[in-house]
């Protein structure tokens, strides 16, 4: 008798097929992430944050340059800045990171365990440390391990509204201007709803002042968070007074608005702001006024600041460590860095290629300030829990700088993250 299927059996089969479909649907896409596969393959993966299609195109071009230089094929994976760190963490938890991983210097201690130490490989990679700015190279080292090769960096400096300065009849801030000059200018530029300065609630806005006033960072050279000091108390009280007593900076709007400083500056609501060269080209293109950069005003310790930047390193999970290292070197070779500098994507960490940034973007006038501040800068030191420190800092700086609470309680809350 020929086997026939009853309607019930057919229905059963149908249900089973549907289940299989659902299952395969769920399982799709698991091939993402590199590191699997054999060590002889020349296919590599590289993950990097990006904010626009133009940026993605630029990074793909850099991937091509590095691929040619190292004899590999580099697949580019990307996510938006905030998602990138969440994605990296969850991928790391399941051992699925790409072969080449991008990291910002401030987050290097947090992700240190994901990276291979590049120091012993530098000779094979054809890389000489002396080609790179030393402060950013140091910032990408954790416990003596070189986690990544830097592609960009920059000192935190003062961005100012040149048009507003000229309209107010003020001398433009020049080399050697002091904190008294800064305060006098801020007073003159404050009227009604426009303010002289934007007092940001993030550590980046304050650390350069602490450096210039007392030569201290939030993290000591031993890697310990320490702002429970007289020096920090003094700087924080001075900074707070800009909002509370001098009223040359607007009350802080809300915690969690990291972009607030840049936006207020670009909208013309605050005439001065602390920022880095990575924002300069966009600021010049966006602002309806002329944007200038000035050195940190001279305080008790001089005109000092910190540098931060980002780089690329090899994941410990990469199957072919040597090839990934060579490709990483390619991502920051002379050709890549010249391209990134010229197109305004990055202020090159390779010192010889920095001229490409100035010339390619008509920002030669910034060179004097940049050179001086780079020379006077330390690498921005952070801890493995810097994300938490940053969050708490941001949340408690708002009531402190608005005058709702005092500096001591701010210090206590931030130090709880040590």
């Amino acid at each position, binding site marked *: 008798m020929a086997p026939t299927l*009853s*309607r*019930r*059996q057919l*229905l*059963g*089969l*149908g*249900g*089973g097929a*549907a*289940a299989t479909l*659902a*299952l395969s649907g*769920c399982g799709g896409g698991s091939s993402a992430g590199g590191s699997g596969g054999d060590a002889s393959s020349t296919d590599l993966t590289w993950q990097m944050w990006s904010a626009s299609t133009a940026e993605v195109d630029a990074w793909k071009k850099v991937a091509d340059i590095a691929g040619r230089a190292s004899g590999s094929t580099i697949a580019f994976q990307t996510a938006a800045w905030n998602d990138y760190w*969440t994605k990296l*963490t*969850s991928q*790391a*938890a399941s051992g699925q990171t790409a072969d080449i991983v991008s990291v910002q210097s401030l987050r290097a201690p947090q992700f240190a*365990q*994901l990276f291979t130490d590049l120091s012993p490989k530098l000779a094979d990679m054809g890389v000489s440390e002396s080609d790179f700015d030393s402060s950013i190279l140091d910032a990408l080292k954790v416990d003596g391990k070189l986690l990544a090769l830097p592609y960009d960096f920059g000192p935190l400096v003062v961005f100012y509204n040149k048009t507003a300065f000229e309209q107010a009849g003020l001398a433009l801030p020049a080399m050697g201007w002091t904190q008294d000059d800064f305060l006098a200018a801020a007073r003159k530029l404050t009227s009604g*709803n426009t303010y002289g300065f934007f007092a940001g609630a993030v550590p980046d806005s304050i650390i350069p002042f602490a450096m210039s006033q007392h030569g201290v960072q939030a993290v000591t050279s031993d890697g310990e968070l320490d702002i429970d000091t007289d020096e920090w108390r003094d700087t924080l009280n001075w900074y707070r007074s800009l909002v509370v007593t001098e009223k040359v900076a*607007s*009350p*802080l*709007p*809300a*915690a*969690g*608005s990291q972009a607030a400083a840049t936006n207020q500056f670009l909208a013309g*609501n605050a005439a001065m702001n602390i920022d880095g060269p990575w924002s300069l080209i966009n600021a010049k293109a966006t602002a309806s006024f002329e944007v200038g950069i000035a050195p940190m005003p001279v305080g008790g310790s001089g005109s000092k600041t910190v540098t931060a930047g980002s780089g690329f390193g090899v994941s410990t999970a990469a199957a072919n460590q040597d090839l990934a290292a060579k490709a990483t070197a390619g991502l920051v070779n002379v050709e890549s860095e010249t391209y990134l500098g010229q197109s305004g994507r990055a202020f090159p960490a390779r010192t010889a290629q920095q001229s490409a940034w100035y010339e390619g973007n008509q920002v030669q006038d910034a060179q004097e300030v940049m050179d001086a501040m780079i020379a006077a800068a330390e690498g921005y030191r952070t801890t493995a*829990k810097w*994300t*938490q420190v940053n*969050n708490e800092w*941001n*949340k*408690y700086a*708002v*009531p402190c700088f*608005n005058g*709702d*609470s005092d500096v001591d309680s701010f210090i206590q*809350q931030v130090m*709880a993250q040590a």
Partner: protein
Amino acid sequence: MALTGAVRVTDATGSPQAPAPPRGTKRGDGRAASAFLLPGAIGFVAFTAFPIVASLVMSFFDWPVLGDPSFIGFGNFVELFTTDPVFTTALLNTAVFVLLYVPVNIVVSMGLAVWISPRIVGRRYYRVLFFVPAVTPMVGNAVVFGLLYTPRGLIDSVFQTLFGVSAPNFLGSSAWALPAVVLMSVWQGFGYNLLVFSAALDAVPPSLTEAAAIDGAGPVRQFFSVVLPLMSPSLFFATVLTLISSFQVFVQPYILTGGGPGNSTTTLVMYLYQSGFQNFRLGFASAIAWVLFVIIMVLTAIQFLGQKKWVHYDQ
């Protein structure tokens, strides 16, 4: 949904020759039923049951994202209720949010539902208008409210024009931040309850209010003694759902204030998120989730017990 669908299909089967068999379990139904249950069941197990069990297990571990988990028994719960400084604040903030939000939401949505319930001109348009905030994405609403609240924002400008003084720095002040978050949430959330109440009002038979009017009851007496008791099942439904959702408040403080200034708008779910996804303490975050679950469950159970006294199901 998939489960009931699958069962219904197997019930309706039967070979063409045989008359419909008597009800009861027939051999062979089981396999087909399982096959149809499978897709739904896999989804349920993978995306609901497993995560619930996993989070319960994780709440007894110190579970970092990177590195190995270690069993610590009730350690996370003990830390929450004894040494952790933020949890008590988050619990208190959530309680304040619920106590402000739920009554205001119910009163506003009920008030507006009553206002548009008579045949006023453009009633249907009002309904749509009031429902729009509830269907627009909350993130977008929060961003817009952030701009309204900020110094030099719309509210501040109006204050300066009308009164010559600045408005409070709503999101930057520890005293104002939570009320500002509540206000935004009410604006976002009242439309849903308004629809529920509006439908319930329409279902009240006019003969009852007319009879009450003939007996001499004024509009207020009619509302509280006739209409409201008839609406009590809807009111109960709306209160339970609003209470549960308000305990889970997250997006509003996340976008508007980031939990600050200080911890003044850190709610339980906000703290859960920070613990799990910013500080990467997954076990600790799971413990918070289970505490929240127990709180919501107990309060909902109390509401269900209490409904016997005030909810009327027969008309």
